């Protein structure tokens, strides 16, 4: 198609000819381009005295054409562009046309390309004023981005993806940030916080969160008895923000995130230890109670154990709400299931169900994946059975995996014994996977004072997000009020048995 040394090229659907010296040729997005050809056309325009066209390479795969023109009289960028478009195919029209008073020359009369102004540094090419990084975090993030994206300058409101960021660069950027700050954010945080300003803010928040260890204030304002929500296998509590915002404005909400997220603390491997660690932190913040507990997914088991420990300590538990947790871990105590046990080694049981639903209804499971929450440390280690048959035994587990691994062990060896209280079970309407006990999710015999079942819209993940979260918030407001009232009633009218004991 292209003969070496020959500067003419014909396309199937129209003839384009190039002129000029071959050693000046450049290839831009697959097209060989001859800057001299463009210079020639520019100089034909009577409004232009002189012109130089150069290729700026700001990314390995991205080159762009820049025309520097010395106008003869007035300078009108649009007119020049229109003129070039009438003469050249669009990919040969320089995107940037910069006005100069004269073309800089070297001592031997050639164009001094190094003396041409860098368009990135010319204020007229920024559509808005660049906002320079101010805080230490912003400076760090901006320099990491500039380095990875091969840019000279990054404004703190530039969007990562608009700057040319893509997955490979995203992986690299988040790694550099982790190395320099010690904060490990999920790569998907870049979608939630795509500017230097927002990502730096997130990093600052992350440091605060780490200082709180497990207890995280989601919405600490309010005078009602605080609500404590225990994390699921996502480990963080970011997923509860939408719910927290939808509750009564006077309702304080705290989250409990997994211990070990900072990569320093060792995660616990018994449910009892996890629960008592969370309780310890709650007692520091709220020593007298009463306590309203919520546990999501894996967190439901932990909240259940916390409620029992609170009661043992003589503390009041207003409410124990379980968000779509399957309490049945009997598979791990069934000797016949040894084979399954081996198969789901390292896997939290729910993933097994997701895999099963894959066989039944692949498209809706895919859909489910689209709606998966972003912005959390996401352990989908075993999602869809994506573990290679023999994972190298010596491979280290990254710490989110390590925590879930410990929790998996904890869940497997935990013996569920009945709780002397009522349980509010929130069960999703859209069950994407198979359960042995779809009606009670294994809780019926565990709630000695009654199990209330509440059906909620969505599936195991999406019930926490718009639009479903509105329904959940309204229902939660109602249940929280009811449970708080019940406690008040009990206090005002002590039941006969406690009166008897008091006597």
């Amino acid at each position: 198609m292209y003969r070496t040394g020959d500067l003419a090229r014909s396309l199937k659907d129209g003839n384009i000819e190039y002129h000029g010296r071959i050693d000046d040729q450049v290839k831009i997005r697959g097209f060989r381009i001859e800057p001299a050809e463009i210079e020639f056309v520019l100089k034909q325009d009577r409004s232009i005295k002189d012109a130089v066209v150069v290729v700026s390479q700001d990314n390995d795969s991205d080159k762009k054409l820049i025309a520097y023109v010395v106008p003869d009289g007035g300078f009108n960028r649009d007119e020049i562009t229109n003129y070039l478009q009438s003469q050249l195919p669009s990919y040969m029209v320089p995107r940037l046309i910069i006005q100069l008073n004269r073309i800089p020359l070297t001592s031997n009369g050639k164009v001094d390309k190094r003396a041409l102004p860098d368009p990135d540094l010319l204020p007229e090419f920024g559509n808005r004023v660049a906002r320079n990084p101010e805080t230490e975090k912003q400076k760090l993030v901006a320099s990491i981005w500039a380095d990875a994206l091969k840019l000279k300058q990054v404004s703190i409101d530039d969007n990562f993806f608009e700057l040319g960021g893509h997955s490979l660069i995203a992986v690299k950027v988040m790694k550099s940030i982790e190395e320099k700050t010690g904060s490990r954010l999920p790569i998907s945080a870049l979608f939630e916080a795509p500017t230097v300003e927002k990502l730096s803010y997130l990093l600052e928040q992350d440091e605060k969160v780490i200082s709180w260890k497990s207890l995280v204030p989601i919405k600490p304002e309010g005078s009602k008895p605080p609500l404590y929500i225990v994390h699921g296998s996502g480990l963080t509590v970011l997923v509860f923000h939408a719910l927290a915002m939808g509750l009564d404005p006077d309702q304080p909400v705290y989250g409990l995130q997994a211990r070990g997220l900072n990569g320093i603390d060792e995660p616990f491997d018994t449910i009892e230890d996890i629960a008592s660690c969370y309780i310890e932190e709650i007692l520091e913040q709220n020593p007298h109670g009463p306590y309203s507990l919520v546990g999501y997914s894996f967190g439901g088991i932990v909240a259940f154990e916390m409620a029992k420990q609170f009661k043992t300590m003589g503390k009041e538990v207003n409410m124990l709400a379980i968000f779509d947790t399957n309490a049945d871990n009997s598979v791990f105590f069934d000797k016949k299931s040894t084979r399954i046990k081996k198969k789901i080694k390292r896997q939290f049981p729910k993933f097994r169900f997701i895999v099963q639903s894959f066989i039944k209804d692949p498209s809706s499971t895919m859909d489910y994946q689209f709606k998966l929450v972003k912005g959390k440390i996401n352990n989908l280690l075993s999602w869809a059975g994506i573990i290679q048959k023999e994972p190298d035994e010596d491979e280290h587990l990254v710490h989110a995996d390590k925590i879930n691994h410990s929790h998996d062990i904890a869940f497997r060896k935990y013996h569920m014994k009945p709780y002397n209280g009522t349980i509010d079970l929130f069960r999703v309407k859209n069950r994407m996977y198979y359960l042995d006990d779809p009606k009670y999710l294994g809780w019926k015999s565990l709630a000695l004072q009654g199990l209330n079942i509440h059906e909620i819209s969505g599936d195991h993940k999406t019930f926490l997000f718009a639009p479903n979260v509105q329904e959940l918030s309204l229902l939660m407001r109602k249940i929280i009020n009811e449970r708080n009232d019940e406690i008040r009633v009990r206090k005002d009218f002590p039941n006969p048995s406690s009166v008897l004991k008091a006597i």
Partner: protein
Amino acid sequence: MASIKCSSESIQFEKPPSVLVNPKNELHVWKIQAIQNDISLLNEDEKEIASRFRRDGDKFRFITGRSAVRLLASKYLQIDPLEIHFSNIKGKKPFITEPVSQLKFNLSHSGGWVLIAFANHELGIDIEYILDDFSIDEIVQDHFTKKEQSFISGSSNPVVAFFNLWTRKEALTKAWGMGIGENLRNLPSLDGMHDLTTGMASWHVVSINLTEEYKAAIAFPSEISNIRYFEGADLFPYQSK
């Protein structure tokens, strides 16, 4: 037992037929140069997105990708290009929300090329321009298994080997709609069969040759029995002004 099979194929792009249909279990891959496009196929939101890219390369790739997907999907679905609607979930691959159909697509672009795959199944495609000076060490350590690491370090050109395996992992990530950079380590990428622990459907991951400067891979379920590769050079008629 369910498995993932990774392999490489030497392929050739054929001239596309004038009428496009997407038969069951057939996958079509389109190759389009990132210089060709038709911005009139973009809706106002997309034009706004295009205008915000800092670099021309990113802008061109976006415009080419979007206008080509619209044009091709309109041919498969026999509908006006602007009547096609896409999902817009941050960080997740877009899919066609309207009209409702079985047609799935996935798009990838890098450097001078845009690749678009169409089928009636979920699928993923990835192309990467091989950045010779890209420092791969940290990514390899974090996101590749020991076996993959030794394969890469033992290759005559580790960077090329890295991009080969990376595009395979990325294609699987996209096929399964997972977020970027998640669980890359657990996605198989070395040549051969990789058994899965559970009974999920089997998948294929195929690396295809483009030019020496690029690596590209497609991931698709094993129900796909035929792949056709179409040259998209004539997709947008060249308009001389």
